[in-house]
């Protein structure tokens, strides 16, 4: 009887622990207990304080060196100031799931967005309110010219993002495949230059040129696979895989069928 009770107690404790782990782990996000009565600005400020301030500093002043400040998930931060980056950068980093990072030395990479749309809007607004900065851009891909876009893409983007926008490598970092990005996110990334990406101002690439680039990337989302199965659009590596794992295997099988031991 006693043993049974201990067992039940253990089981309950385990369940509780599991529940806590479950509740904590997947969302590395800290939220205000209740959103009721909070203005958008206050909600943004609270979410910022809970999820961003450990790296970006109080009021977006930045954390140039490792300091004692710890944030959600006990992250010790180091990060750039956010005053003046505007809604443009905030929207890019938050809607792609680049931020928040688990650890400031990580490369921002496309992840599931943990914030709700309402929360996103609140933080974006809060960051934009820190200092005047660029607003969220509104590119118009339909106004762009696909051919001009192709040319500009090869000129400015293909070196890192690969000719068919399938992503790639630059020393010390991965380059994302940008086909999942919305036109707004592409426009933001071009103007902001996240992580190791160069930033292109309006003087460097006009809004019209940017529209063309976006039009081409939109076209690349459904590339003209006139030749059949596109096998990833990165050229020779998957072609070699097909050669060996489909063609060579099929041919060996054919040889075995034809050349198996014959009975006299």
């Amino acid at each position, binding site marked *: 009887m006693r043993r049974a009770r201990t067992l039940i107690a253990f089981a309950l404790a385990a369940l509780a622990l599991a529940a806590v782990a479950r509740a904590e782990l997947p969302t590395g996000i800290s939220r205000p207990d209740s959103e009721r009565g909070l203005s958008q600005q206050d909600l943004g400020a609270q979410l910022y304080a809970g999820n961003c301030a450990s790296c970006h500093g109080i009021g977006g002043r930045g954390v140039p060196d490792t300091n004692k400040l710890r944030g959600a998930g006990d992250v010790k931060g180091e990060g750039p100031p956010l005053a003046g980056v505007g809604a443009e950068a905030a929207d890019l980093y938050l809607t792609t799931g680049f931020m928040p990072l688990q650890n400031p030395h990580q490369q921002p990479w496309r992840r599931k967005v943990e914030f709700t749309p309402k929360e996103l809007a609140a933080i974006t607004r809060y960051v934009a309110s820190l200092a005047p900065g660029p607003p969220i851009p509104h590119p118009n891909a339909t106004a762009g010219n*696909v*051919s001009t*876009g*192709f*040319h500009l893409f*090869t*000129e400015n983007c*293909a*070196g*890192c*993002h*690969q*000719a*068919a926008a399938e*992503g*790639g*490598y*630059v*020393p*010390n970092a*991965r*380059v994302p495949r940008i086909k999942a990005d919305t036109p707004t996110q592409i426009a933001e990334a071009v103007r902001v230059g996240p992580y190791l990406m160069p930033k292109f101002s309006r003087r460097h690439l006009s809004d019209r040129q940017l529209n063309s680039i976006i039009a*081409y990337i939109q*076209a*690349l989302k459904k*590339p*003209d*696979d*006139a*030749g*059949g*199965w*596109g*096998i990833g*659009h*990165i*050229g*020779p*590596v998957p*072609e*070699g895989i*097909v*050669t*060996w794992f*489909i*063609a*060579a295997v*099929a*041919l*060996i099988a*054919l*040889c*075995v069928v*034809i*050349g*198996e*031991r*014959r009975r006299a």
Partner: protein
Amino acid sequence: MIRRVVGFLDSRSGGAPFIRATLRYLFPDHWSFLLGEVALYAFAVLLATGIYLTFFFHPSLADTVYHGSYAPLQGQKMSEAYKSVVDISFRVKAGLLIRQTHHWAADVFMAAIVLHLMRIFFTGAFRKPRELTYVVGVLLLFTTLLEGYLGYSMVDDLLSGMGLAIGYGVALSIPFIGGNLALLIWGAPFPGDPSFESRMYIAHVLLLPALIATLIVVHLVLVASRHHTQFRRPQRGAGDRRLLGVPMFPAQVPRSLGLMLGVAALLFFLGGLIQINPIWLWGPYHVAQGTNGAQPDWYLGWLIGALRLVPSFDVTIGGYTVVPNPFWGGALFPLVVLAVLLGWPWIERRISGDRGFHNALDRPRDAPGRTAFGAALLSWVFLIFFAGSADRIYLFLGWSYEAQIWIYRGLVFVLPIVVFLITRRVCRELQQIDAVDRRREAGEAETRTAGVSASRA
């Protein structure tokens, strides 16, 4: 009717005895003996599709502007060569099918040659009296590598331009003569004289195919004159002296024709269903442009791997460049592999002291040293080949590129030795298992005969 045709031919050519012997030429049977045939048929498909492509390809680097059906290239400046290949893909009916089949056939041709070479190597088929056949085969492999490289290089799309730049860098890096050689081939500093395109073209569609065809004929004549090798089947008399097989006609011909059509069928299926080298996505080439992760076709992947693995250094004497970096990975490495492969029959003879004639094949376990060396060489080349796609592995699996490169740099020295030792061990163990089996069988047979004689007594 048949008799009349034969009679006509024989009285004009005197060929009846030859045809009579050919019909009953014997083919020993094992599936792996068909790999060379696969390569031959892939070459036939290459010739047929290649001839068709020459009717539409325009080997010229002259500037032109695209006004075809593919919208993203509309109005872009490009070379005549690139434009003609885009047109083959989109405008010429069945052009894309033939173009893709041609490219797949090249990839498969090379794969079949490599498989065939592995079969020859690991069974010791290259031994006396077939060293010449083997040497011609290895030369064929390297000639076809060059042929394939020229094939995708003359299209003048972004990838092929980058590949040519690398080829130019490797040519320049050869000590003493590199600068002269590269200028001779290209006619001017990169991207070269406009005539460079026609040089590639004539080499790709005439010089090298003629060389390859000649080497294939020599290869086949040598094979036929010494007859095929075979695995031993002592109970049926097949060994070093007697050949056991099925005759060319009627047994082998339908099988070989079936294989030929099967190879062609696979290549046309691939050509129609799986996209290869979509040059309209890469765009035209310009010296100032590049795309991330530029790769060559698979059969040159080992060279890009080697080029990427060599650490940053040029050999210099007093500030004078003697050996530029690309030489190691791009020129010396393939030359070493070529030399080892070409020299292997004589190297092995030196080591084993075996100078006899061999018509019967070894099973890989029967020659642990050779098998271990072959496996080590293969693993070495494969590792470097694999290193050539480290950037893609990083992108897809998240393994740091820099860490991978350092690991491969170490493995290049360690892996072949480990593979050599393990393979040799496995071969010897297998041999011992065989020996135990044989002794047991002999023992069982002895007890059986002993039992019989005992019961008689």
